[in-house]
């Protein structure tokens, strides 16, 4: 394996001298600004090229066409056999695994450590106007025809402009970036018809071998909905790209959006397509463009033979180094437009003989904005600027999303719902997308949408028996903590407001949660509780739904912030983990 470690040490050397000088803040004051200025675009782009073909990879942008702050998790816990391995690794453990220097740009992009300090030094991440110069630079270096841009999906959903234009603004952004091939997950929440319309607008291909017609009385029963693969000539080589959309779309999101379509991992048919590409189509390289999730793809690589590269997505992991399982190399490029992955391929005699890889951080203060990109963003925001730029309030502490159990932005959402609905307990989904606000930041309406912009935003309030709540939590816990990655769904635990509990991750399914309290009192299995929830399907299990009071979550949260003015959310989690002593355990489940 030949990760370009030198490149990334170069950047660390340029920036990460904090550790070496005993923690002195080299970025303070005017001298510090000068030092940041010295880190140039070409430092970020430094790369040891290989062969003639290049694949650029993006995943899980969640419609963030503008730069944002994005804090990685300080708690990322899973089953004991999985923690500390790629996909379940954070903080110091991440730094040790990947060799990240303290105080470096990489620390800022890859971990939560020193987040607020580094955010003020390095500024926002991502944004299409800053991604484009990276793509252009690589195309100029390698030749336009020798570069492909592949998108692992979760691109069309996640911001107000995406929701209000029903995905069109984001497809426009993809066309601007030059996306050649994509797969999907949240894309499907616009509904089947809209998905097909948007694919019509996309200049690239939408492929998936694992989405099939599921209506036994249809003439196309069990036939594919999308082309399963595409073959591209790049750098003189024939590259076969097979699509994997999110296998659990119909359980993770409302079924109504994809009624009549069936998903699933479908590794048996994937193997058939790999064999077809190799034996019949005589490709030189097989790539799976995937939204399975990083850990699921590591399992997939054990089941399917003959795949050279899996370009993964869904679980939002930044992985500065490739992960090799059997003969398959697995890559993933973080989330929210924070990175563009560059993979160079040296293909000789119809085989990949060498490659090099790097995650290029989209550091908006270091990469000058492309004017056309800024104009595109401005064009799509213009009709909504008045609404989206409304200052709802300010936050005292950092508001973030990612964490296995608890996050401050979710706690704010839960508080807002509980305040309005007077419910005993509020469920907020454990999605991994959203935004981050720094202490003292204004909270704009746009930021509330960044946490909640979905096509099914309704907050439902209904009755659930204590025993049902307990079973639901165990069911959700098993989706998050199952020791078999194939039985996980790649999200975090649902967040609770008005409740607290202890959890033993390693306990058998159905027996993980204890000391479950609602309103400070132990959960009574026979008692009926008033529950509010959004973004899931819990309401289907409930009774006495309050049909007169169903409002979109973004309206409820906006009203609450306006009312409060200053938001002050505790960093204290309401979940106690019994079998781990830290949030970022190492391999072997030690701290």
């Amino acid at each position, binding site marked *: 394996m030949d990760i370009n470690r030198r490149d990334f040490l170069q950047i660390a050397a340029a920036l990460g001298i904090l550790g070496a000088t005993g923690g002195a803040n080299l970025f303070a004051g005017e001298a510090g600004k000068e030092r940041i200025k010295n880190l140039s675009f070409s430092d970020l782009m430094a790369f040891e090229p290989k062969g003639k073909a290049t694949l650029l990879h993006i995943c899980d942008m969640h419609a963030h066409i503008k730069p944002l702050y994005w804090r990685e998790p300080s708690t990322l816990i899973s089953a004991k056999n999985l923690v500390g391995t790629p996909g379940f690794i954070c903080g110091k453990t991440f730094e040790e695994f990947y060799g990240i220097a303290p105080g470096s740009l990489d620390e800022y992009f890859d971990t939560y450590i020193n987040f607020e300090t580094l955010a003020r030094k390095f500024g926002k991440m991502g944004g299409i106007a800053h991604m484009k110069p990276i793509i252009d630079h690589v195309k100029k270096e390698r030749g336009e025809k020798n570069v492909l841009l592949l998108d692992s999906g979760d691109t069309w959903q996640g911001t107000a402009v995406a929701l209000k234009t029903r995905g069109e603004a984001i497809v426009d952004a993809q066309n601007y970036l030059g996306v050649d091939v994509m797969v999907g997950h*949240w894309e499907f929440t616009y509904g089947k018809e809209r998905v097909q319309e948007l694919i019509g607008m996309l200049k690239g291909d939408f492929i998936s071998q694992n989405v099939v017609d599921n209506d*036994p*009385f249809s*003439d*196309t*029963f*069990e*036939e594919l909905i999308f082309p399963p693969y595409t073959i591209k000539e790049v750098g003189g080589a024939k590259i076969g790209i097979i699509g994997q959309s999110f*296998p*659990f779309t*119909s*359980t*993770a*999101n409302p*079924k109504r959006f994809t009624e009549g379509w*069936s*998903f*699933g*991992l479908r590794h*048996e048919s994937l193997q058939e397509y790999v064999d077809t590409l190799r034996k019949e189509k005589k490709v030189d390289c097989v790539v799976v463009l995937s939204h399975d999730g990083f850990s699921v793809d590591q399992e997939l690589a054990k089941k399917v033979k003959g795949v050279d590269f899996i370009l993964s997505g869904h679980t939002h992991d930044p992985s500065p180094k490739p992960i090799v399982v059997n003969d398959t190399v697995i890559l993933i490029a973080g989330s929210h437009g924070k990175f563009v992955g560059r993979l160079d391929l040296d293909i000789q005699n119809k085989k990949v003989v060498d490659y090099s890889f790097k995650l290029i951080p989209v550091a908006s203060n270091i990469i000058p904005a492309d004017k056309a990109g800024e104009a595109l963003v401005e064009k799509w925001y213009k009709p909504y600027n008045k609404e989206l730029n409304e200052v709802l309030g300010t936050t005292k502490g950092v508001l973030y999303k990612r964490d296995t159990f608890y996050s401050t932005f979710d706690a704010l959402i839960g508080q807002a719902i509980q305040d309005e609905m007077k419910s005993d307990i509020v469920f907020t*989904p*454990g*999605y*991994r997308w959203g935004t981050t606000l720094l202490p003292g930041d204004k909270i704009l309406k746009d930021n509330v949408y960044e946490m909640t912009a979905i096509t099914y935003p309704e907050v439902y309030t209904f009755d659930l*028996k204590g*025993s*049902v709540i307990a079973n*639901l939590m165990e*069911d*959700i816990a*098993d*989706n*998050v903590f199952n020791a078999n990655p*194939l*039985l996980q*769904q*790649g*999200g*975090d635990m*649902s967040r609770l407001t008005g409740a607290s509990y202890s959890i033993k991750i390693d306990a058998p*399914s159905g027996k993980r949660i204890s000391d479950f309290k609602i309103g400070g009192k132990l959960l009574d299995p026979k008692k009926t509780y008033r529950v509010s929830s959004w*973004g*899931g*399907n*819990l309401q*289907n*299990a409930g009774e006495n739904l309050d049909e007169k009071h169903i409002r979109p979550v973004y309206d409820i949260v906006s009203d609450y912030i306006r009312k409060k003015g200053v938001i002050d959310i505790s960093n204290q989690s309401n979940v106690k983990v019994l079998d781990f002593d830290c949030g970022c355990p190492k391999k072997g489940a030690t701290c």
Partner: protein
Amino acid sequence: MKRRNFLKNLCAVSALATVATPSMVMGKDAPKQKPKGVNAMSYDSALNAITGGKPVADSPKVSLTVPEIAENGAVVPVKVNVDHPMEENNYVKAIHILTTKNGNARAADVMLTPMNGKGYFATRIKLGSTQDVVAVVELSDGTFIKASKSVKVTIGGCG
């Protein structure tokens, strides 16, 4: 016959085959309401009724295709393909689909003859909870082979 028409016909058969399976709805208190009646049958007694107590070995000849996680527990697609000849005196005689935790463990029984041409059957079954699906195959010489796989039934949640 086109493959999809072939499958369609099989589905029509399967609708009859699964009609006795008790319906269970996740999320409510359904798992507690165990069906009591003529259709209630445990996995062990169902297996015994099929094999008459003969041994059943796991075999790579039986390929059982089920989803890792059910998209909808009420209609879980199950495919069984038996890699075995379909000749006059050597053929797949029956394919049985069983579940380990449903109130009635017996989901489908399909009798075949060499005229079927292939030891293949596809259907959809209901699963009340996370459990194993087992395909038990009877060969014309009176021996039994099987394959089993776990299917997770969840109400979902994460995104």
